[in-house]
């Protein structure tokens, strides 16, 4: 690792009121030119897993996102550090992100960072006490749609592990791989499980991406996979051994 030690980031989060969880594994993901922290926001009784992405363009932070939604933009050195929605000031808990941003700004290009799990507790966010999370999410832009996924690229990345696949847009099912007979069976399968999945996961109200795998739920022992994009779904039957590759392709597509 070429950048800042995990302990320093933990100290920053701690200083800002975030409570580090030292029992959890510290390093989750590393990427050149991109720092990624996984944090838990806890507001009232809600535990909210959040992913904080900080992108670097070699000299400056170009953007920070939380869980896919834009949280703040960071100007080049000398400009305003960041702004959050219409808020003039950051809440106390967000000072941790400012401190993190400061730290990242001083890192060398391509710095790789790792951050321990942490969570923010409600008491650290007095400015928002009593504010419903939905409102807070809108304020912070956390509910804005994430990046558009190339669902086809994910399906294609799996190659031969995909037995049958199709794109469902509206009520139109278009073949990506397979025969017409396969499509008929896939359509039947989708009709059986999709309403239940959509109800269980609240997809109708969530424009963000999603991926669901139901084990051994197709035929020939295959897993049924449903990839959700902004305005389409990809349905696929994949070999069970493809799960790690599938998840990897999905997360890679999210980063585009």
């Amino acid at each position, binding site marked *: 690792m070429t950048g800042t030690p995990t302990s320093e980031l933990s100290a920053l989060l701690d200083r800002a009121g975030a409570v580090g969880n030292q029992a959890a594994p510290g390093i989750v993901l590393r990427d050149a030119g991109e720092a990624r922290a996984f944090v*838990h926001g806890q507001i009232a009784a809600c535990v909210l897993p959040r992913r904080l992405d900080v992108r670097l363009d070699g000299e400056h932070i170009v953007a920070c996102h939380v869980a896919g939604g834009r949280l703040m933009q960071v100007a080049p050195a000398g400009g305003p550090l960041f702004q959050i929605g219409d808020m003039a000031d950051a809440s106390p808990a967000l000072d941790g992100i400012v401190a993190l941003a400061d730290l990242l700004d001083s890192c060398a290009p391509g710095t790789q960072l790792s951050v321990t799990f942490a969570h923010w507790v409600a008491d650290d966010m007095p400015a928002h006490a009593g504010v419903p999370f939905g409102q807070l999410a809108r304020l912070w832009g956390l509910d804005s749609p994430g990046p558009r996924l190339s669902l086809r690229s994910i399906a294609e990345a799996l190659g031969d592990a995909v037995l049958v696949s199709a794109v469902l847009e509206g009520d139109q099912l278009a073949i990506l791989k397979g025969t017409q007979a396969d499509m008929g069976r896939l359509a039947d399968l989708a009709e059986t499980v999709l309403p239940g999945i959509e109800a*269980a996961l609240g997809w109708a109200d969530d424009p963000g991406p999603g991926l669901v795998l*139901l084990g051994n739920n197709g035929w020939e022992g295959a897993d049924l996979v449903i990839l959700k994009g902004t305005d389409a779904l990809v349905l696929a039957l994949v070999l069970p051994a493809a799960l790690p590759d599938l998840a990897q392709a999905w997360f890679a597509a999210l980063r585009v």
Partner: protein
Amino acid sequence: MTRHLFDAFRTGLPGCEIVALTDISTGTVLAWSAALKWPQDDVDAICALAGRMLDLGSDTRTGVPTPHAVIVQPTGTYVIVRAAPDRPEALCCILAPGAALDTVIATMMRFCADLAAGAASDKGAT
């Protein structure tokens, strides 16, 4: 069923934030362990989700119920494993994004088998 078993399982599974064992036939949370302090309502919701996902279908040839389900979201991955085809218990984990999924399901199934074996030996001892 002791808490330390679940604590040990969770801390041994990289990126695991919470593990819960539930009876999906009744919606009862049987045991759980988490890295953070989770409100009981949230744990109940995770277990309810496990039941709903595993009820979503079965193998079209054999009728065997869905053995596992995985929900991948930008902020984390839910992995739900049925303890056995004829059992109402299910194990649920939430893992950090990027967690290695290739061994998770097998590890969870082994843990379920260990729990069942432990329960059987407890019964035999009484």
